[in-house]
């Protein structure tokens, strides 16, 4: 399935692998932090609501 990349196969594949890993990491950390922030705000709003 992978096209014939000739003598530069290692360079091309490593460029794609490194880039996709960095992008994937960025998206994963962004979503994880976002979910944590939502949960934190929800908890503290609940607490504020309880204490008036």
């Amino acid at each position, binding site marked *: 399935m992978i*096209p*014939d*990349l*000739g*003598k*530069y*196969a290692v*360079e*091309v594949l*490593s*460029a*794609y692998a*490194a*880039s996709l890993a*960095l*992008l994937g*990491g*960025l*998206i994963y950390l*962004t*979503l994880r*932090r*976002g979910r944590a*922030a*939502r949960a*934190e*705000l929800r908890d*503290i*709003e609940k*607490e*504020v609501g309880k*204490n008036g």
Partner: protein
Amino acid sequence: MSIWQYANPVKFLTLSEKVQPILWVVATVCVVTGLLWGFFGTPDDFRQGSTVKIIYLHVPTALMAINAWFMMLVASLIWLIRRHHVSALAAKAAAPVGLVMTLIALVTGAIWGQPMWGTWWAWDPRLTSFLILFIFYLGYIALWEAVEDPDTAADLTSVLCLVGSVFAVLSRYAVQFWNQGLHQGTSIPVATGERTVSDVFWYPLLTSMIGFGLLFLALVLYRTGTEIRLRRAQALRNRMERRL
């Protein structure tokens, strides 16, 4: 109706949550299409061989690395002039995205440079200014983390952003300014529109560039929402502590 109404965090979040699902879908479709098209559907270049396939990553990320800094510059200026917290938080939210884009551009450039130039790195004007831009991103993020008071942090990082803009401009125009070094000039001059890239490479590249631009926007909107929520949580926590 004024654009400044979106300086209100609630209005910003409402609009942002509406736009984001579409933005994420279109961005993903464009990035995936651009990269798959470029990787599987384009021929080798007669000089660069298959390394030409690296441009579908290198060019869009380099473009976004510079444009992210300009977006941060505009947001920082809005903070300094109008004191809208959302703009300061948007600048903060964009920095890690810009940092990753810069890193990908540097890494893919080095991987491409080794077989084409015979070196991973050269102290060429564009490469050097790009490396300095990367260091500015790191400094900007570190400064936000180092200063406890959020308004002071926003002030200091805005000033740092103004200074760093010099290197963002240099990264873009270094080849024209110095007319030396290994890095070639742009193949897609926006001003003249006389691109030197053939259609077979251009269309997947354009798709990838649009995709990375939209991905940047989606990430920044999402991250700005996160920053707003964290700021609100901190404000509520401070209020509770004062009552105790």
